[in-house]
């Protein structure tokens, strides 16, 4: 009984959601970082998820294709949110521009919190799938033991 693919698929989901959670934590921690190694304020980082599937989906008209769904999910890239920095008027700040505005990171704590809830929920769902698969594998083992 092929159970290991199913466990690996759930594990890929857990890994991806964990990475997303790390990025959210990093975004929140740097919500007020006005300096970064590359100069300018910190920029919000986002994970790009991509389904790990055989490239057989060129013909959407034929839904019945291969025997296996795929190998789960992968984080294809971590990109920087291109939206502009948040401007706050604070001439006394050491990183203030000549016009008195300070460029703060484009991190919105509320967006991050919502993303965090979604990531947590998805993590738990993958964990439940993992638990169900190992329970099934144990059932098959018990059958062999008799």
């Amino acid at each position, binding site marked *: 009984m*092929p159970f290991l693919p199913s*466990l690996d*698929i759930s594990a890929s989901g857990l890994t991806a959601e964990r990475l997303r959670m790390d990025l959210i934590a990093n975004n929140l921690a740097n919500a007020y970082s006005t300096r970064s190694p590359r100069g300018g304020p910190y920029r919000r980082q986002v994970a790009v998820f991509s389904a790990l599937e055989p490239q057989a989906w060129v013909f959407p008209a034929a839904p019945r294709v291969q*025997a296996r769904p795929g190998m789960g999910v992968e984080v294809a890239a971590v990109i920087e949110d291109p939206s502009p920095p948040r401007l706050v008027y604070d001439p006394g700040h050491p990183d203030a521009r000549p016009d008195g505005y300070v460029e703060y990171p484009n991190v919105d704590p509320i967006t991050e919190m919502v993303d965090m809830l979604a990531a947590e929920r998805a993590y738990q*769902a993958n964990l439940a799938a*993992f638990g169900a698969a190992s329970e099934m594998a144990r*059932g098959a083992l018990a059958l062999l033991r*008799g």
Partner: protein
Amino acid sequence: MQRVGLLWNAADSSLALALDAAALRQEAIAHNLANVETPRYRRFDVVYEEALRAQQAERERRKVDVVRTHPAHLPVAGGKPVQPVLVRDTTSLVRNDRSNVDIEREMVALSKNTLFYQTVTTVLGTRFAALRTAISEGRR
């Protein structure tokens, strides 16, 4: 698994196929849940019980139950074991991120599949236990 004999009959074959279907469905659900946050992802589904029911209905309609006891016999229409089929669901409603994974629906499918698998393994276990009893009784 087309061999039919004393220790392995047609019912066992269908049970084994049902286990395969449940394992494949588990993979599909795991894949859907892993991609719950992937934009534009379309969910997978496994069609098995529906096909099985259709075959059953077809047999009922014919009212004759023919059994092949020799490989040289002509095959009986509708007697082929139903194979689980993986399908991609492109019809259901799409969310904001253009994926169509519904987390509640997947979780329900997950517990249903686990229960289904447990039922089949229990039935198979009972079959094996009966065989074991028959064998050990004969030894006395």
